[in-house]
């Protein structure tokens, strides 16, 4: 009980990756990425508080092609975490817990996340270099 150096679950390095486990750890990774991206909310507000000059600097920064690529990746990260979060909420109510349903909803989350990212690129005219 006192051995605090023991390995704790989830034993990511032991299990063979499966769709379910990969989607589960991806949910955590995307959550961490979104926590970092949440910095953008106070950052935008600070630029507004500082005045039009700083706000325009933010706009120029966002228009940069590398930042636009990062924004595209962020849309996928957000869409994935949002949809997989909804999948988790269904599980919490005891729905979709069978092996088949878990795989179907897993693939569905991935496909819809990609579709939402592609639609956002078109709708918001994100410049990703082509």
């Amino acid at each position: 009980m006192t051995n605090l150096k023991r390995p704790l679950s989830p034993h990511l390095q032991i299990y063979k990756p499966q769709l379910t486990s990969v989607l589960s750890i991806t949910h955590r990774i995307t959550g961490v990425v979104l926590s970092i991206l949440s910095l953008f909310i106070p950052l935008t507000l600070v630029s507004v508080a500082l005045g039009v000059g700083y706000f325009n600097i933010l706009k120029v920064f966002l228009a940069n092609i590398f930042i636009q690529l990062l924004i595209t990746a962020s849309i996928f990260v957000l869409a994935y975490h949002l949809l997989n979060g909804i999948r988790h909420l269904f599980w919490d109510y005891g729905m979709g817990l069978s092996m088949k349903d878990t795989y179907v909803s897993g693939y569905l989350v991935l496909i819809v996340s990609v579709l939402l990212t592609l639609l956002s690129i078109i709708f918001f005219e994100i410049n990703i270099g082509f």
Partner: protein
Amino acid sequence: MAIFHWKIQRISAILLVPIIIYLAVYLLNLENISYSEVREDVSSFWGIIIISFSAIVLYTHSSLGIEIILEDYIHDLNNQRFFVNLSKLIHAILLGLTLITLIIIKGNYL
């Protein structure tokens, strides 16, 4: 405590579904909105209510999520406690910064 933690994580997740879609669409459209329009939106009554509420729910959800991850992967209890508290502090600072900046923008706009 764990059940309370679990419930707050789920309630904040449900609340975040419409909030995050609205915020993401607004931020992705930022390029097409002028400075004066953004300032007007942010300092309007509903702007202040939506942003304050969103920030509280978002940073609560984020803080609880990071806490769970730190508890799962940091095995040493002292380190775990340190990083959980650090995470809570950073989230509190970000929430505070959001709310204070809102007050400043509203104050300048009056």
